[in-house]
């Protein structure tokens, strides 16, 4: 290639701008159906955006004697996040409280059984003696007719 054919930076920039200007001109000549299809595509895109980002008000404000809805997607995002996190925290706390209460009730129950056994005149080892168990059973069968005659 001849070195004279090579454009300087300024010449290259000028040529590029001229070509870009010509391309801009070509935009004016776009056929009507293409312009219409582009317009339809644009409308569809903006409509899709509207469906995706519903503008919801989070509060009311008085402005020049008129009530104005305020707040929008940013606030909604925060409250939406809070709305999902708060019930979750409440659920975890509730489960924890139920668990600890059940532990307390179980401990109380065991303690009352232990207390009854230890404070009774009869020693707890007596319930492991087979002769004593037979005595209790015989006693309950004898006691039943007695109570019946008493009635």
């Amino acid at each position: 290639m001849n070195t004279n054919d090579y454009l300087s930076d300024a010449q290259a920039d000028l040529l590029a701008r001229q070509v870009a200007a010509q391309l801009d001109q070509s935009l004016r000549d776009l056929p009507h159906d293409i312009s219409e299809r582009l317009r339809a595509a644009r409308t569809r895109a903006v409509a899709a955006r509207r469906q995706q980002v519903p503008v919801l008000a989070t509060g009311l404000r008085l402005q020049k004697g008129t009530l104005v809805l305020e707040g929008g997607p940013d606030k909604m995002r925060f409250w939406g996040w809070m709305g999902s996190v708060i019930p979750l925290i409440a659920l975890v706390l509730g489960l924890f409280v139920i668990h600890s209460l059940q532990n307390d009730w179980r401990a109380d129950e065991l303690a009352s059984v232990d207390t009854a056994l230890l404070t009774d005149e009869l020693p707890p080892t007596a319930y492991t003696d087979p002769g004593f168990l037979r005595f209790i059973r015989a006693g309950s069968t004898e006691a039943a007719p007695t109570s019946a005659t008493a009635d």
Partner: protein
Amino acid sequence: MASDSELTDFLKSVEKRAFKRSLYHVRDEDAALDIVQDSMMKLAEHYSDKPANELPMLFQRILSNTTLDWFRRQKTKNALFTNFSQFEADDSTEDFNLLDAHRISEGNEQVESAQRTVERHQSIQEIETEIQKLPARQREAFLLRYWEELDVAETAAVMGCSEGSVKTHCSRAVQALDKALKAKGLTS
């Protein structure tokens, strides 16, 4: 966050240029329209929370990526089927441009002479042809840098390459265009 009207205005300002840019790459009007529509939908659906001043860069990037996706899909499709449709698309595009040139020239007769209109259309068409002949990366760099008027850093960000590569691509593209347009007598 860009409002609906800001988004509409922005899309209105870029849609024709985006269509042409895609058309230079894919050389198929329907595909170019699909690419522009997909890009608009992606911008509206995924980046609607971005401020209005970020939309141009985002859109250019989305458009480039959507065009690349189209080429990837075409490559897969062509690997499976014969590429008759590709030839048909090329032919229809060229026919369409010629017909359009005639149709539009009729409407512009009052403004400029028929001969001048035809010359202008021919000149634009020659330039468009030469732009389509450029290698894809050179064409992309040239269009982003000079037509979309992005700076070197922005062009590099959209193309996902270094600033040095952008400068090289642009320089080669301009030199190639100069040579081709000189050969056709369009520049001195």
